[in-house]
Every structure is written in structure tokens, then in C-alpha cells.
């Protein structure tokens, strides 16, 4: 289709397909929200016409023709009357125009760079390239960055492993660090890239540098260290695959050397899921050769959880362990038993919760199962929103690639999780809902505001239903840890800053108070 086409026009419904107007999914989410919040609008979708978004649009009851292509922008609105429809379309156009308006001070004859290479030419002193482009297109931009001598953080997921291997080989030759792909978190010299907490920390005592093959694992670790008053010098993300056999810890080795050479780092912590044995051997050998002491926090069944690992580390550093803060946890637990539903935005937090809860509850089904036998059946994992009824104890990682293809991460877009909370609330077999709320840069500006009504609806159900929240954040985060905790507790949740404590408590509730 070469021009804007309109189909399925009923009295107050409109579906448009606009060619050649690409916007990233986060921008479009905001545009869609602008339309959805227009008075009288019952459904609104503004998204690139990827396979998933087409399905979601059809799921909203809109008609989408087969020949639509991912380069087209879907604008689909349903409203109570024509005036509302018109207002919503104006809101869409206004928000799109605002999104593509030139930056203040931009010169008309100076177009923004179209590739990382030309951006690097116009900003030769830049140090880091941050990529969040579609996974298949990371290679080109990443090679540009490495060729220009820029360190690279790849936020994107769905990057082919062969591309990761190639980028990291080229990076090693060029002497730059590649963080990622699927690296959501880094803190470099006090600056948070991607999802990162604002670490207040002390200015005295030993400083810890974190190397993380786990985004929310690094956030939990850095927040707990911060709460204990330990300085975190840098957080270098690796992406979840760096310590696999194929990638061989390429970036872990570079990161170790960078922190070894950094005068501001006194101690290094490597946090990861259990790596491939050969890779582990290589990385641990490199770590052992450093002057800087290195601790490892390996997440997995049989290993200490992050909170316990932090306590061991604090002892090593000679720092006293604080009481990890919790709010609203003195509520009495009803004797009813039932299913646990963990609805996680953070993959590592989901993993840790599963390990902790499985110790009390046995088998827990998941899209990222501990054992293959625990995998959720494919019919439960519908695109967009899983159907968990009748699956027993379940923990899902909503940030998994399968859920994020073509849409924003649940730490940015709460809509999928809010829908899932409502589904669980309506399910009489569910006894406890376990949620993570991760604060910091890039996370939702006020997650408690969105969650509170859903939590209130859940705990107000006739039969007993509890909501437990693992709240990962710091006092300095823009969302304000304390205010978030208080709002969640006011809605009826139990709130823990330690994820493992939250999971342990949720498992206890599922067992009717029996530990």
C-alpha cells in the first residue's frame, strides 16, 4: 500500500495504515496512550504493523488486512461517537508530530545522522554507543560503533548469537567493551545507562565494581549494596549470553581488565547465572590473576540467593549487614492454600523467586523453567498475554524475548502485567500474586500508581488473596522508594526490598502460612 488507506470504518471506529512513518515502540506506546486517554475512546492501538502488533490489533476487534507490512504504522481507534474518534485521531497526530519535532536549536539544513558511523563522525569524542534498534539490525550499527572506537552497550534483544560473537571478536581487536546484547543495565562513572538505579551510597569505604550477566540481578545487587552503605564504582552489563560456550565470556574478560585498571574500584563482583563450565574456567582463571579481589555470585538451584551472597560479600568487605527493609509484612497470613503466581518484569528476579519458592512448593511452571518438565505448554504462552489458569504454581518472566518481540519491555509498558493481575484475581485457585517492581532510570515514572488499583482489586476479592511485591530500588531513585512502598502497602501489598525474602514469603502464603 503506497498511501494511507482506511478500512473497516464503522460508525465510530477507524483503522489506518500509514506507510513510511517509523517510530520506536516506546514513542508509539506514548502516542497510543495519548489516544486511549482521550474521553470516549474504548480501544486504541498505535504501533508498527509487526506480526505481534497485528495480532494484538485483531485481538482488540479491529480488522487488519493480510497485506499489511511491518513498515506501516497502524492507527486503530474505537470510540463512543465521532467527536471522540476525531479527538483521538487529533491526539495521535499531535503526539506523533511532537515526537518527530526537531530538537530546539537544530538547523534545518543539518539533518540528524542516520547511522552510528555518521553520528560518530559528528561527535568524535563520544565514548559509548547505546543501541536499542531491532535485533536483526544491531550488527550494522554495532560494527559502525566498533570501527569508530566506541564502547558499545546493546540494549536490544533478539540479536542472533553469531552476530554477538562477531561483534565481540571485532571489539576485542579494537580494544572496546561490548555490553550486551540484551544488556538492560549499566552504570558508568555514576551515569546510569538503560535500567539503572540511582546509587547514593557512601563516599568512604571500599568501592565495588559489578560485572553482570544479568540485568535485574545487577540492580538487586547494587540496590542491596547501596542500602548497606557500600559504594558501587561501575556496573558493567554483559548480556545473558556472554558466559555461554558460544560467546566464551568475551566481554567478561574485557570487563575484568577494565575494572582491574580502574583506580576507583577496590573489589569486583561477577553476578551471573551458572556459566558454561569451559567459559567459567576461563573467566575464573582470568579473575584469579587480577590484583583486585573478585567475588562471584552465581544464581541457580543450590547456590545462595542474591541477598545471601550480598551478606557474604559484606562480611568479606567488613561492612555490617543491615536489616533489609520491608513494609506491610506484619499482616496475618490466612490459612487458605492455593497457587502462587509470579508475574515478573525482571528475568533474574523471576529466576531467583522460582528457585526460592520451589524449595517450599516443589514444581513451579514457567516460560523460563528451572527444569524442562516445568515448561508452560505453548497454548498457555499466547502472544502478548499468557493464559495461566489451571497451571498450578507459575512464575513468568514477562521480559523474555518471546514477549518483547515488537513491543516495549514490561518495565516500561505495564499493560500486559496489569491484564494478567486481573486474570489471576478472577482465578479462584490463585492464593498469592508475587510481583517485582524495579525502580530507577527508564522504569515507569510511578509504577505504584498503575499497580495500586489492580492490587486493591486483588486483595478485595471475597476469598483470601495476597499480593507480595519485591521492590528493587534506592532512596535516590526518581520514583522515590519509600513513597512507592507506602502506596503499594496502602493498596494491600506486602513489600520487600529483598527479592528472595519476597519469594519466600509468597511461598509461605501459598502454603497457608506454613513455612
Amino acid at each position, binding site marked *: 500500500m503506497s498511501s494511507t488507506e482506511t478500512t473497516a470504518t464503522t460508525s465510530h471506529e477507524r483503522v489506518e495504515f500509514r506507510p513510511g512513518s517509523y517510530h520506536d515502540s516506546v514513542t508509539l506506546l506514548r502516542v497510543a496512550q495519548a489516544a486511549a486517554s482521550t474521553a470516549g475512546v474504548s480501544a486504541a492501538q498505535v504501533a508498527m504493523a509487526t506480526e505481534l502488533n497485528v495480532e494484538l490489533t485483531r485481538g482488540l476487534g479491529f480488522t487488519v488486512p493480510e497485506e499489511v507490512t511491518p513498515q506501516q504504522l497502524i492507527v486503530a481507534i474505537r470510540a463512543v461517537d465521532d467527536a471522540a474518534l476525531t479527538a483521538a485521531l487529533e491526539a495521535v497526530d499531535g503526539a506523533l508530530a511532537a515526537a518527530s519535532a526537531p530538537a530546539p536549536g537544530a538547523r534545518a*539544513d543539518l539533518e540528524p545522522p542516520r547511522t552510528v558511523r555518521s553520528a560518530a563522525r559528528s561527535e568524535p569524542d563520544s565514548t559509548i554507543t547505546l543501541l536499542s534498534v531491532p535485533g536483526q539490525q544491531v550488527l550494522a550499527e554495532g560494527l559502525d560503533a566498533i570501527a569508530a572506537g566506541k564502547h558499545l552497550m546493546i540494549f536490544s534483544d533478539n540479536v542472533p548469537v553469531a552476530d554477538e560473537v562477531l561483534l565481540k571478536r571485532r571489539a576485542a581487536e579494537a580494544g572496546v567493551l561490548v555490553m550486551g546484547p540484551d544488556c538492560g543495565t549499566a552504570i558508568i562513572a555514576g551515569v546510569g*545507562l538503560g535500567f539503572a538505579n540511582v546509587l547514593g551510597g557512601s563516599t568512604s569505604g571500599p568501592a565495588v565494581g559489578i560485572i553482570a550477566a544479568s540485568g535485574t540481578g545487577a540492580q538487586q545487587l547494587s540496590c542491596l549494596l547501596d542500602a548497606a552503605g557500600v559504594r558501587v564504582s561501575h556496573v558493567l552489563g554483559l548480556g545473558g549470553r556472554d558466559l555461554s560456550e558460544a560467546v566464551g565470556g568475551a566481554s567478561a574478560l574485557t570487563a575484568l581488565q577494565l575494572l582491574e585498571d580502574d583506580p*576507583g574500584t577496590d573489589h569486583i563482583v561477577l553476578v551471573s547465572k551458572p556459566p558454561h563450565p569451559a567459559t567459567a574456567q576461563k573467566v575464573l582463571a582470568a579473575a584469579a590473576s587480577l590484583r583486585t579481589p573478585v567475588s562471584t555470585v552465581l544464581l541457580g538451584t543450590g547456590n545462595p540467593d542474591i541477598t545471601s551472597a550480598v551478606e557474604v560479600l559484606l562480611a568479606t568487605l567488613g561492612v555490617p549487614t543491615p536489616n533489609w527493609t520491608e513494609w506491610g509484612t506484619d499482616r496475618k497470613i490466612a490459612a487458605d492454600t492455593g497457587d502462587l503466581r509470579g508475574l515478573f518484569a525482571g528475568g533474574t528476579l523471576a529466576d531467583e523467586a522460582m528457585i526460592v519458592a520451589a524449595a517450599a512448593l516443589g514444581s513451579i511452571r514457567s516460560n523460563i523453567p528451572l527444569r524442562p518438565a516445568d515448561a508452560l505448554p505453548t497454548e498457555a504462552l499466547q502472544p502478548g498475554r499468557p493464559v495461566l489458569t489451571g497451571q498450578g504454581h507459575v512464575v513468568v518472566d514477562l521480559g523474555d524475548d518471546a514477549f518483547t518481540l515488537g513491543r516495549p519491555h514490561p518495565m516500561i509498558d505495564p499493560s500486559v502485567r496489569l491484564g494478567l493481575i486481573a486474570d489471576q484475581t478472577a482465578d479462584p485457585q490463585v492464593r498469592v500474586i508475587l510481583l517485582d517492581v524495579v525502580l530507577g532510570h527508564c522504569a515507569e515514572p510511578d509504577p505504584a500508581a498503575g499497580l495500586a488499583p489492580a492490587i486493591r482489586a486483588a486483595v478485595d476479592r471475597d476469598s483470601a488473596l495476597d499480593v507480595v511485591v519485591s521492590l528493587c530500588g534506592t532512596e535516590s531513585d526518581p520514583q522515590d522508594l519509600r513513597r512507592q512502598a507506602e502506596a503499594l502497602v496502602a493498596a494491600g501489598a506486602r513489600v520487600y526490598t529483598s527479592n528472595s525474602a519476597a519469594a519466600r514469603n509468597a511461598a509461605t502464603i501459598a502454603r497457608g502460612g506454613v513455612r
Partner: protein
Amino acid sequence: MSPADLLGTPPSVLAAGAHLLTEALQSQAVPVLDVDFRPSETSDDVSAALHTVLSDPRRPTADARALAAMMGVRALLVDVLPASEALGLQPGQFLHAGPPLQWERASGPMRGALIGAMLFEGLATCAAEAEAKLAAGEGVSFSPCHEHRTVGPMAGVVSPSMWMFRLVDANDPERVAHCSLNEGLGKVLRYGAYGPEVITRLRWMADILGPALASAVRGTIAGGREIDITAIVGQMVQMGDEGHNRNRAGTLMFLREILPALIDSGLPTADVAQVAAFVSRNDHFALNLVMPCGKLMGDAAAGIPGSAVVTAMCRNGTDFGIRVSGTGDAWFAAPANTPQGLFLAGFGPDDANPDIGDSAITETMGIGGMVMATAPAIVRLVGGAVPDALAVTRRMYEITLGENPAFAVPILEFRGAPTGIDVTRVLRTGIAPQINTGMAGRVAGTGQVGAGLVTPPMDCFEQAIIALAAAVPST
């Protein structure tokens, strides 16, 4: 570039993708430059091929070699001689612009130029007879200029009796390129006109102009002076010529080079005066020197395995064709677009033929539309304002590998011309090379109808990337 000290330096970020990440950095007062990234709009086959080519370990070195070879050419004008001598063309043998073409698919201006060449060579006595012989293939054959170390503007038809400029690369005298002599504007053979005035002019060019230029060029060289076309191109680009649609400064510089020897040639003063007047009144005369300079540059970069640099762009009035370094002599052709622009009095868009001519070699070498910024005088002719011209040239740096310091653009702080069109970057960005061009009338015999802008069909680049990917050795 050596990498920055990551941990000891306050971050300064280049960001491509979700703007939310940029905003989070800006809120921390971190300098961020956002890349205006847009996903490439290509099919899965093309994306897969692009991916293969990007992953090819030979590519960075191969591209660097191709670019260096292209920019390393120093084109010298060494002779002027008939095509029969220069190229060994026999009666009935013709060259034409663009990728290979059969008579059945030839456009109006191409047919008109071939008819004119038949008349000029005395192979037919009227247009109808010429056309019949050409259609029957009776004693005639034709093939692309590009396959004979030659480039031809517009229809680009070369016949044995036409005189040719011969250029060589000073760094590699084995490399030779040719181009015919420019006839001027309006009703001329290269735009498909073949009336009596066209044939009369061609005869004068063969009888007087060609020998006179030969004498002047040989005399100049004998006097110890090189006629360095690369140097002329560098200067004309600084003087407001983009070397494709505007060659006024270049033409006068060329005349300056040869005038002493021309005057000193011993030819009748009437002939000398006619030649000087013809050249100096034809603002496009130097185009036919710029083009073979570009041909030498494209050929120098050709045949480097693993390189995705475009070494030729040309059109035959029906198809647009490109050649790419890593795939050697292969043509990737697709139906040519029709230029958009301004028309001569009495003509309109319906009169224009699809894009035609080898002159897109000027864009291939990094000038023409690629350095539109340097030629404000023609910006209006091709339908734009000065800021548009600056924007076009800046955009061309997105799809080229390097910048040629020999062709510096004053208004862009003497930045070198964007050189070495990279197939991978064209496909990644969806930005097509900008071509400034003349427009031929679609009906044979019409001549020029206007001038304007055109871009190659993206299909050429898509075919090229698939062929480049197929040529990547499996590891």
C-alpha cells in the same frame, strides 16, 4: 580511532533506537547524540544478504582498498583520436550508454541516436532505412560503452568516425578511458535528435574539431605540460561546478590549458577561431572529460573481492544499471526512473524519457548530485533551494565510504566529496545516490527537453547485495 577511556571519562553517548533511553541520559545531564535510525525497508532475502555481506571479514579491508584505488587515480588527457583507432570500432559497430540493451527495448532517444549515427556513418540514407537496418540487426551491432573502456553521455552512442578523448591514470598507464566530444545542448545526437543540423555538426566535429583538439592536446603535451583532468575537476568543484549539470568553470579551464597549443597548431586561423568559439560557448564541453576521469576511478576500484563499493552507475533510457567492486563486470539492472525537474520551453513531464546516459559516473566518482552543495547556481535548475543542496550533499555522506580531499566542497568547510557509494549503506538507510541529469525527449528525434533530479531504482542495489552475499566464501 583509538577507543576512549571508558571508566575514567564521563560518558558521552551516541544512541540509536528507543528515545526513552536518550531521555534518561539527558535527565542525568549526559551529552547524547540521537541517531535518526530507521529500520531498513527490505525483503527478508535482501536483509539476509545484507547481513552476510556485513559479516564478511574481508569487507573492511576490501572497501578500504577500493576507496583508496578510486581516490588514487590521477586522470591525464593524453590524446584525441577517432573511435576506429581508439577502440578499434569497425563500420556498423556502435557503443551505447548504460547496461546491455536490445533494439526491441531501446527507448526513443536511444533509437534516435543510433539512427543518427547510421546516417552520420553513411550506413543509411534516411531515418526509415536506418531504423529498418537497426531493427533487423543487418550489419550492425551495439554494446555498452562501459564494456569498452568508454563512457557516453545521454544515449552515449559512439560510432567509428567520432573523435574521442583518451585519458590514462598517471599512476597506472595501463588504465585507459574514453569519451566522445560534447556536441552542445538542444537538438543533438546524444539526446536522440538526428536532423540534418545534427549530422552536419557531427561532420564538422569529425573533420575540424577532433583533429584540432588532437593537435592542441598533443602540442600541449609535447610542450612539457600535463593536462591533469583530476586537478581540473578539483578546481571546478571549488568554482561552483558539480561536474554533471554544470561544467562551466571546467570547460574554461580546459580551454586555458590547450589554447596556446591550439593557436600554435598551424591550423587555419578560421578553424582555430571556430574551435575556440565552439568549446567556449558550450558550458558542458568539460563533462566529456569529467566522465572518463570518473570511469578511470570506477574501474580502478573494480574487482576487489568482498568490496560493496559501486564502480559504475549508468542508464540506457530503459534500464538503470550498476556495477559493484566485489562482483566485477556483472550488471545489476532495473527499469530506470524518470527525472523530475524543469523543462525547456514547450516541453512538459509527459515528454521526458526515463533516465538515460553514462553520466551518472560523475556521481559514482563522488561529484555531480553528490556535491550539489557546491553548485548553488544550478540548484534552482534542478528544482530546489540552497539549503536543500547542502542537505543533499550531507545526506550523501551517509552512504559513501570516504571523502575525497581532491574534490573539496568549500561551503562544507572544504570537506572532501562524498566518495565510494556503499551498497550496504544505501540499503541500510534507504538513501539512494542523488543524480543530477539532463532529460531527453521520449520520442526519437526530439532532443533535450529539460534537466532535473533522479535516483537509481533500489532494486539494483538489492540485486547487488544478493550477488555480493553469494560471493562471500563460506567459513
